[in-house]
């Protein structure tokens, strides 16, 4: 009982500190504007060619972060691939009616199209590599859910997914290195002379769409690996 009260006390005092911090920040008199975001908002479209500013931040201004997070995802996929046994897979034993199987079959092309759309239009509309990747990952996940993991992995073996994931990551780095080839810094886009095109068109914003594609491939494959690994049972 004392222990529980002590724990409660700890958390409450942490909450107090947090609250003090938040209210201090809130009460702070902030006259100076946030020049970085101002710059991104006012110049971002010209500088990167992408209408979606989040994409321009993710794949251009701070593309290096994206490389890092892609690596984290890949690491997680790698861990799950070796941590959870690859031997035998079994799905709860549920069988569905034929409606589910047929619907899944017909749904998959639509999902694929949606995924490709979200990835390709990442610099123009809400979405991008991550979101599109997640959508793409739905395909193997749906397969696993309805037909069982065996079928899903027969269609797309874990090795294939792993290779696709690696190719996505390597592709990202290689695209970044394109700028180095032209004598600029890593991951440079507009500065390295890649045509930014007209903002708002599909082929615009230099490297951003291609980076989006790479991340999309990577995230899709990675999530599929993670999901399947977590579902597997001995």
């Amino acid at each position: 009982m004392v222990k529980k009260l002590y724990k409660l006390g700890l958390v409450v005092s942490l909450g107090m500190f947090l609250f003090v911090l938040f209210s201090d920040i809130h009460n702070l008199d902030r006259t100076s504007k946030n020049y970085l975001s101002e710059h991104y908002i006012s110049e971002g479209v010209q500088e990167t060619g992408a209408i979606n500013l989040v994409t321009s931040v993710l794949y251009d201004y701070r593309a290096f972060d994206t490389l890092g997070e892609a690596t984290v995802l890949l690491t997680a996929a790698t861990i799950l691939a070796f941590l959870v046994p690859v031997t035998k897979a079994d799905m709860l034993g549920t069988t569905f009616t034929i409606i589910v199987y047929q619907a899944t079959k017909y749904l998959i092309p639509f999902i694929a199209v949606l995924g490709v759309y979200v990835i390709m239009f990442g610099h123009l509309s809400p979405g991008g590599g991550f979101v599109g990747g997640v959508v793409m990952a739905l395909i193997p996940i749906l397969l696993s859910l309805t037909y069982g993991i065996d079928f899903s992995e027969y269609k797309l073996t874990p090795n294939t997914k792993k290779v696709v994931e690696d190719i996505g990551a390597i592709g990202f780095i290689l695209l970044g290195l394109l700028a180095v080839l032209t004598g600029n810094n890593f991951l440079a886009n507009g500065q390295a002379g890649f045509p930014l095109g007209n903002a708002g068109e599909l082929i615009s914003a230099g490297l951003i769409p291609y980076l989006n594609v790479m991340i999309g491939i990577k995230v899709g494959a990675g999530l599929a690996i993670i999901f399947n690994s977590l579902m597997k049972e001995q």
Partner: protein
Amino acid sequence: MELPFVVVTILFCLGIYTIITQKNLIKIVLGFTIVESSLILIFVLVSYQPGGTAPILDKAYHLVVDPIPQALALTSIVIGGSVTAVMLALVIKIQKRYRTLNVDKLRKLKG
């Protein structure tokens, strides 16, 4: 503007409380996801601007929210998701090996 901060604080503390009091491994992992959600909520709060819209400038320039925290939030969601996935995998593994989800039974390493 005060209320969201209160919510965030409560969420954060709730998560921490879950982590330090719960014995069930799954619940501990859930605690981590709660804390993570509260952090992402902070990202949203930080970028919030009264009257702003999503930072997609397909129409003429008008008031949009700060795009940077949104990008950062995306990154931290992915990182948090990966970490949670790894944690869950470990929990599965522990359940297989130790036949329990009680955190106090994980006591092979001590001293």
